[in-house]
């Protein structure tokens, strides 16, 4: 029982990352009709916003300490972050410690800008081209972004810690009447789950309850008619692209403390997120969220030893196996609508 609860928590956590990326993908697909293979790269760039802010906050003044030596035996250069010099040791250290949450503030405008430049500069030229062309160009763009990040930050992972206050884990076992130390779950992963729930809720509310959202939904349903009504739908869709990029970006920022960011983390998520979108149904936002959580939970259960002992290697194929079964039973995915990508 305790194992099942633990894997359920894990699945919700994994699923929230999948759902956030798949949500952005579906938003772009639903509004612009573009299959955006660069979406994983946007997630990665978000994580590197956190890395960059951490690096910026750690820019230091240098002083030589003649009493200590470096690895070559030369006098040691002691570095003190400017933030510490300016705000004092305590406040300075606190600002550096909170670099990941602070990065959210930086990431939102940066990601909207990146999304805007991507859409206006490249993707808009591919609206009327076949999906295969769109996939190729966005995939190429993803590789370019990935290589740029590698050039700047190197190939190895860069540790980007959560604030000290959220390090450690919470003992659910005590709460649920199990033995202590049996069901423990890291604080930051719980925050990640709550954060994604809020973001997903906010995106749905935005589309549901604002005029802007209403126009966008109308445009998703029938772009031509909305255009004929005198509404500049292209402008709104560009803004939606920026919003989708921002969602991927903040998902990346918050993911940074879970696994140290590296340049290919976007690709690791991209393929899975596409499966999520297809399983959920192309163009369906609730479908993407549902499928994200479902596949996350299934993946977690598949890596349980009890399951692996019966089906060895099931953890490696579970997602694709589920996708095959669902597409056989429901060819349009869980919540897919008639007519999407079927013309």
């Amino acid at each position, binding site marked *: 029982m305790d194992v099942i609860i633990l894997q359920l928590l894990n699945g919700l956590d994994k699923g929230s990352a999948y759902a956030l990326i798949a949500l952005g993908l579906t938003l772009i697909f639903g509004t612009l009709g573009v299959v955006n293979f660069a979406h994983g790269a946007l997630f990665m760039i978000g994580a590197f916003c956190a890395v960059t802010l951490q690096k910026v906050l750690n820019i230091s003044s240098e002083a030589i300490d003649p009493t200590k030596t470096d690895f070559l035996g030369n006098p040691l250069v002691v570095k003190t972050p400017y933030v510490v010099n300016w705000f004092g040791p305590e406040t300075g250290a606190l600002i550096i410690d909170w670099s990941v949450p602070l990065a959210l503030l930086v990431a939102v405008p940066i990601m909207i800008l990146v999304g805007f430049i991507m859409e206006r500069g490249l993707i808009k030229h591919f609206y009327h081209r076949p999906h295969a062309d769109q996939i190729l160009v966005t995939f190429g763009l993803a590789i370019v972004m990935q290589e740029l990040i590698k050039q700047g930050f190197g*190939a190895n992972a860069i540790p980007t810690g959560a604030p000290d206050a959220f390090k450690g884990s919470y003992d659910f076992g005590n709460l649920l009447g199990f033995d202590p130390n049996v069901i423990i779950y890291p604080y930051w992963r719980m925050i990640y789950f709550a954060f994604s729930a809020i973001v997903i809720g906010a995106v749905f509310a935005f589309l549901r309850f604002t005029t802007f959202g209403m126009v966008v939904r109308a445009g998703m349903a029938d772009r031509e008619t909305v255009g004929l009504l005198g509404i500049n739908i292209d402008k709104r869709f560009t803004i939606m692209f920026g919003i989708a990029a921002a969602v991927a970006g903040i998902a990346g920022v918050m993911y940074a403390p879970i696994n*140290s960011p590296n340049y290919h983390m976007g690709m690791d998520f991209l393929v899975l997120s596409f499966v999520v979108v297809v399983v959920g149904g192309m163009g369906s936002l609730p479908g993407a969220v549902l499928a994200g959580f479902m596949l996350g939970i299934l993946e977690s259960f598949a890596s349980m030893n009890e399951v692996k002992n019966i089906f060895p290697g099931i953890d490696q194929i579970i997602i694709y196996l589920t996708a095959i079964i669902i597409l056989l039973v429901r060819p349009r995915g869980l919540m897919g609508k008639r007519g999407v990508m079927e013309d």
Partner: protein
Amino acid sequence: MSTSNFTRRGMLKTGAIAGAGLALPQILSAGSHSSYMNAPTGSTVTLGFNVPQTGPYADEGADELRAYELAVEHLNGGGDGGMMGTFSSQALQGNGILGRKVEFVTGDTQTKSDAARASAKSMIEKDGAVMITGGSSSGVAIAVQGLCQEAGVIFMAGLTHSNDTTGKDKKANGFRHFFNGYMSAAALAPVLEKMYGKDRKAYHLTADYTWGWTQEESIAAATEAMGWETVNKVRTPLASTDFSSYIAPVLNSGADVLVLNHYGGNMVNSLTNAVQFGLRDKIVNGKNFEIVVPLYSRLMAKGAGENVKGIFGSTNWHWSLTDAGSKAFVKSFGTKYGFPPSQAAHTVYCQTLLYADACERAGSHNPCAVGEALEGFEFDGLGNGKTLYRAEDHQCFKDVLVVKGKENPENEFDLLEIVEVTPAAQVTYAPDHPMFAGGELGACNAG
């Protein structure tokens, strides 16, 4: 009647002898120079450095390339000579190899076997590389070693730690300076026993490929021999990025030690996840829960950040060693690049020097002659103490370092501290040890 010493028969005889005499050096030189693959003919000799320049191990590959460039500079008489001055064999003169200036070409393995084979093949066939070296993965090393054997060039393996490289997949043309999974386990086990006692229950998470399998087999055998119980061995896909669903079952498995047979990005993430789940703060079976990482590297420790503190593992070499060879290498590398070399850089620098030295001693680049010069070669001064290149399996036997993530690093490179230098004798095994059995070196191939 006039007489003459010149007769027709005599002329023919003299002519034949003179002709043969004149031709002889040509025949002999053909015998020693062009009867093997890519025999150098001009004033230069080309080496092929096959390292991951893209992909997850690109940083290690970049460090290997730096070390190769440094080695070439030293071989050609440039720089401060690095470990050439401390190397016990003094055959290298700083005038290239056998008087020929050393040049090099590079290839990108991408840490993929097929890409690595393709780049090695291109360097052998198009660029005329007489030796291939490098790599940062056992899967790649074994693939490239096989290719070099078929092509007839020497392969000096880079960072490869699977028992199989010099075990069941060993080849006559392949040589490994780096240590292996068995040696890590043999060195680590006594330290683990001393630190954590004999009564422990271990849970293994293992990268699902050749290196992971042999590392798991080695460390499980060594710890079981001292009384530990192996609770579970779980294989994780190499492409995994989030290990939370593999870490979670450890919590209630009854294990009190987690062994992470992971390397590179896998290790960074699995260790980070394990620490996030609070494993290190747990008390199980009345003991503190512990994590062990059998193969450590400084570049990985950097990626995992604070999580490595206090965690034991093993490494082939570390820049903080104080022997003359290590100091000379750290000085020339550090002066040129501004930071200390990694263990990957060290092993490939040694391999390049060892190859050049073997050529000098053999008087040829012929892979069979070079192989003979390396087999059973004993040397010192390259940072690992007295070392033997064993003839039976082409594996180097030398001291192994047991290290621990440093609690209070003094600078950004000061991440691991050496706990013990395990003497070579303690990590030596018989050539027919079951973990290495199954393959044959075969005969050397000169192409």
